[in-house]
């Protein structure tokens, strides 16, 4: 009844079943079989199957785009674009295969296209002030408000520092730390050897650490970390 009243008031209600996986970008996904059913139906032009696919993949696509771009508005645009590309190229996709790797590839390509349109060279830093914290949600369950604030501050500093990395380093940190991909999955997506993934990831982590240190005094680093 309370939920009904809140809906009447136009208040968005958090889904009761929303797990922490969903808020980290790893949405509780339909199984491979369910995706296969939707994809097979969507290939025949079934609009409801296409809607189901879009609904299931919207959040994973959004979170990945947000982590690459740091900007919710651009992430929304990329999500729409990526879902259209996904649905428009279903004929090229074999329905029994995992969907998320293919979706990530589409999102990544859409992000690259956006950045080219914005005339940002891949090898260069965005020369930005970093990512803004408004994209983050406060979910720390710590009852102590002070500790909760410190935890959130730590995450915001890391997030902000991520936005200051060159695109190549930012991308690999996102893939490993925020998307939780294995080295093999990263290698497949970036089409580089696993050794390259390890060395590139290490350089990216070192640079991220440097950016975090720039954001805080060294004396505060111990308390922060």
């Amino acid at each position, binding site marked *: 009844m309370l939920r*009904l009243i809140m*809906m*009447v008031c*136009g*208040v*968005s209600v958090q889904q009761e079943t929303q797990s922490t996986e969903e*808020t*980290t*970008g790893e*949405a*509780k996904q*339909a199984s491979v079989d*369910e995706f296969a059913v*939707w994809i097979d139906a969507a290939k025949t032009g079934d609009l*409801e*199957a296409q*809607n*189901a696919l879009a609904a*299931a993949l*919207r*959040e994973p696509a*959004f*979170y990945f785009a*947000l*982590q690459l771009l740091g900007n*919710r508005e651009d*992430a*929304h645009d990329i*999500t729409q674009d990526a879902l259209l590309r996904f649905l428009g190229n279903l004929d090229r996709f074999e329905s029994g295969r995992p969907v998320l790797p293919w979706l990530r590839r589409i999102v990544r390509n859409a992000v690259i296209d956006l950045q080219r349109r914005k005339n940002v060279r891949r090898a260069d830093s965005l020369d930005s002030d970093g990512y803004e914290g*408004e*994209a*983050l*949600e*406060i*979910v720390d369950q710590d009852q102590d408000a002070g500790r909760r604030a410190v*935890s959130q501050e*730590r*995450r915001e*500093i*890391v*997030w902000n520092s*991520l936005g200051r990395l060159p695109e190549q380093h930012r991308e690999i*940190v996102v893939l*490993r*730390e*925020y998307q*939780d991909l*294995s*080295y093999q999955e990263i290698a497949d997506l970036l089409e580089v050897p696993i050794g390259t993934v*390890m060395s590139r990831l*290490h*350089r990216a*982590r*070192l640079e*991220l*650490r*440097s950016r*975090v240190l720039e954001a805080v005094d060294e004396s505060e*680093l111990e308390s922060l*970390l």
Partner: protein
Amino acid sequence: MSDHTCGVEHPEAAADDLFSGYLDDVLTQADRQRVRVRLERCAACRQLVEELRTIRENARTTRFKAPKDALQAERPSSLLSSVLRSTGWLVLMVWLVLNIALIFFLDVADDAGFVRLIVGASLLGWTLLLTSVLVDRLRDRKTDRYRGVAR
């Protein structure tokens, strides 16, 4: 490439890259042992690995706000439900004003007609609002065959 000096010579400069592999537990046993030996001999290396580990944990526990499209499911999805919802809110606002009048002009409480008006406005307003939600839900149930599919 290293951004620190250990004060101890390490023949394999490439071991630096292995720190990330060590952190992610993807090394072979031989490489893992090489890294452990280095960490035992180098306090700066140990500190570096711990800092990287902590930054990694902060990144991995970061949560993001859902895309704003999540709000769309809660908005009126048809003209009928929009009209019902808007009218319902308007009636409830009138009801609120009547209640305020009742508080400041208590003599109207003796007026049975006024009391009926207040009660009626409340009932009508809430009925319109809840009906708008019901209309949306019935529409969703009719058009979404995949609603019951677990996600």
